[in-house]
């Protein structure tokens, strides 16, 4: 299955985007997000960007005040996931221009659309920025 969830959470532990590739109830999500953020916040910058939590491996990366956290299973290449996060941020950056937390908040659905293009069934399916953003730009024109 690979990727189990993708989260964007800020330093205060407030969720900015959450996409799960396996179903969890709201309570489970809330608990999981709280635990993970606490765990990741406690780590210093030079420590590994990977944390094991329950049966997940969390790969996280911090951009300004925002943490990008990806929960994966054991078979994933952690460093590749770390770069996948960066690819996601680069893609958003190309779309929004100097992307910041507020862009994601104002355009939550678009951030989700990008993820929908990049990840399906917990697998990375598209990594070409033009392929990812193409449909979204068409969508904007349509509306």
């Amino acid at each position, binding site marked *: *299955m*690979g990727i189990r969830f993708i989260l964007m959470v800020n330093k*205060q532990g*407030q*969720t900015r985007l959450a996409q799960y590739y396996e*179903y969890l109830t*709201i309570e489970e*999500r*809330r608990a999981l997000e709280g635990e993970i953020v606490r765990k990741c916040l406690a780590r210093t*910058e030079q*420590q590994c*960007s990977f*944390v094991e939590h329950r*049966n997940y491996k969390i790969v996280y990366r911090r*951009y*300004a*005040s*925002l943490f990008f956290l990806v929960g994966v299973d054991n*078979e994933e*290449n*952690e*460093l*590749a996931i*770390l*770069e996948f996060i960066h690819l996601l*941020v*680069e893609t958003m*950056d*190309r779309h*929004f*221009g*100097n*992307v*910041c*937390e*507020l*862009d994601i*908040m104002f*355009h*939550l*659905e678009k951030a*989700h659309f990008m993820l*929908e293009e990049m990840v*399906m*069934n917990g*697998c*990375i*399916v*598209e*990594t*070409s*920025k*033009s*392929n990812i953003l*193409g*449909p979204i730009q*068409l*969508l*904007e024109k349509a*509306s």
Partner: protein
Amino acid sequence: MGSQGGFGQSKEFLDLIKSIGEARSKAEEDRIVLHEIETLKRRITEPDIPKRKMKEYIIRLVYVEMLGHDASFGYIHAVKMTHDDNIHLKRTGYLAVTLFLNEDHDLIILIVNTIQKDLKSDNYLVVCAALNVVCKLINEETIPAVLPQVVELLGHQKEAVRKKAVMALHRFYQRAPSSVNHLISNFRKRLCDNDPGVMGATLCPLYDLITIDVNAYKDLVASFASILKQVAERRLPKSYDYHQMPAPFIQIKLLKILALLGSGDKKASEQMYTIVGDIMRKCDSTSNIGNAVLYECICCISSIHPNPKLLESAADAIAKFLKSDSHNLKYLGIDALGRLIKLSPEIAEQHQLAVIDCLEDPDDTLKRKTFELLYKMTKSSNVEVIVDRMIDYMININDSHNKTEIASRCVELAEQFAPSNQWFIQTMNRVFEHAGDLVNPKVAHNLMRLIAEGFGEEDDTADSQLRSSAVESYLRIVVEPKLPSTFLQVICWVLGEYGTADGKYSASYITGKLCDVAEAYSTDDTVKAYAISALMKIYSFEIAAGRKVDVLPECQSFIEELLASHSTDLQQRAYELQAILGLDANVATNIMPMDASCEDIEIDRSLSFLNGYVQQSIEKGAQPYIPESERSGMTDVSSFRSQELHEVSSHALRFEAYELPKPVMPSRVSPIEQSSSNELVPAPEPSYHAEMHQVASSVPSVSDPGSLELKLKLDGVQRKWGRPTYSSAAPSTSNADIPKIQNGAPQLDAVSSSSSKAVSYDSRRQQVEISAEKQKLAASLFGGTSKSHKRQSSGSQKVPKTNIPAAEKSHVAKNATSDTAVLERTPQPPPDLLDLDESAVSSSAQSVDPFKQLEGLLDLNQDTSTLTTSDASASGAPDVMSLYGETTLNVQSGGVPNLLPAGRDEANLLSGLAGTPNRNGHGENTVTNPTQQLNKGPNAKESLEKDALVRQLGVTPTGQNPNLFRDLLG
């Protein structure tokens, strides 16, 4: 660009986002959301809401759920929105339902129709949106409703649709493999798709399929290898490049697939060697993504049939990882080492110190990974050090998931490699003491069995020595507070069986201890049951030995308490004990023979010994027994229940229903005991018996040796310990270690405190000592084969005699023979300067300024990203695409694809072309890095505009929300 167009939102929405963004705490956020829920509940039901407005409401609902609150009141509106004709609204509706619903939700049925319709749409964006939802919300039952359309879409003219259709089929396969078994060949077809995106996506289902059945896909090895080659030769469109690497994510997926296909298959592996070698050579080890691919290569190399050359380059790559300052790379290095160590065990030696560094790193992730490595490289020569370390680590972690894993690994290693039974028991004691409630109960039974069986064929003196030492250690441990229940059960059992066996402790001493346990853990019935059974054994041993039994007052009151217990199990045990106390020596020996827990028990399943009794009763006019099958109507509740319970405990003895009134002590039954227990036990009702069994099944091996024997059978559990031949050093070592390990924690504290004292002593000496310690540890972990190690160990044995301070001398002398567990203590004069230098340098470099380095990394990434983007737009991507198409055609037609010479030339040319700017770019990066050019040229204006717009809207970067505006990549 996108941001301006998207700001068509209402003031209300912006205010909401603003207040959520500015919320200082989770509590404040919750208040805002709760208020929002109230507002939405009112608004969303109003008539004639404009569509645009409704879309906003839906997104606000998404926020509500995302922030952890229930928004189910609005689900239906999201479902309605999926019917909309406007693609943007439709997609938002679809997004919301995938976020809100799971595949078994009742509302799904309302969406399936829409999905069906949309899959037929002329607008490919609509089809894509529908396929996204198919991937999330179609369950096994609804697959047939959309399957034909999805299959049809596999041949759609738009590559984006084909890609998503492949993933939809993948999803069906994940959910219900049988529903799409006949369609699996489609994945093979799509692998040769003209579009690299479709091909890349198809690798996901193929990876899953190959994981399940490797052999069915061996014919694709050549194709995968050739695709990988083409990817590595930059024949995919530039837009797939990431930080100068050609389509690294596709490369990684392909390497994963090759690893599966080449595992244990020499022929298949040989087809991969060249390309994997090429990729390893080409990988840019200065970028994260280059290292990610490199790491995947190592994984592949360690999985496929070994090739010496590749193994060598893998080892080199690992060395680079481990020497790196980046913890991420070290982590990968340790992981890769663990993979490669199976193939070339000697590789670990050259990285001894790096491994030890990681083991002692404060970063828990790294530490844990290193323990995983140690776990993989454990053998009988280093098991003591490793398990010792693991237990130390285990004691200090709170996370029970992690702790359970480490504990079970300790147990596994100890069972597999224990150098001596004594060591095994001591180790188990420590594991139980600190994680007793987390380990599998089976482990407790293994331990009891070991103590009971001893060495097996060996002489009895060794066995009794083992038992005495177990008893001794338990008597010491048992006074400690808050021991886990499982451990107490073991303690009680051992004390009962062997507490008085060697005559060292009197019965009253042991019974006193047992009563203390029962009192201290008075809420734990299981422990109490073990305790009273232990008492019973000790008293009957006393009776059998002809000694006068004096029951201590506290024992008496304990027994009395249990006689009136609510638990019938405890009650029965108490009554049995009372009965035994009144018996003579002969009977007691029969009921409770000494040290008989390992003897086989014959079970008379037909209960023939009761025939006489039955006969007698029938003669007296009692009803004969009617088998259950003949009295179907008569089953009453209690027998029903007992039946159920029997089913539950099916792995234990199976008693059929209605044997209930028969003896409760099923095993080792001597007729005398039979009758006595029948008489003594009050209320032999059916329900009672049922309860007994319940307890017996949940509390295995409690009282009578019979059930113990049954429980300890442990079918299939290998006898891993025993008496293998060990290296001559091992036994003496373990002997020396015992006292140390026995009082585990305090002793260890002492070690650490003493070493820390030494550290504060003199900074210079500290370096020396730490590295000496590490080397010692390394030596004990990695065995004595490496040269440097030999030098060290000879030094350590010689040097102390001459050089060490007198105070420490005795200690060293004591431990001189053992070079394993006690190593840390041994002080050492500066040993190998070379090694020392290395570790000192690496540690200081590490502490220099990791932030700086991270920053550098980020900047580099960022610069390259802009470069890539400009490259992508500038270079002739379509050309490369057509090229790609051409070659895939070759694949299709030619079977084994080999690149045409012409194609190669073109490719070279192209890659040459593409390569130059890249290389330039790269050089520039490294050079211009310090200039910190943060702003991405064309975007600066945009961001200013955006800023202005946001301010207009009332969101200003105040002290409350400074971060919201921070450029994420900046």
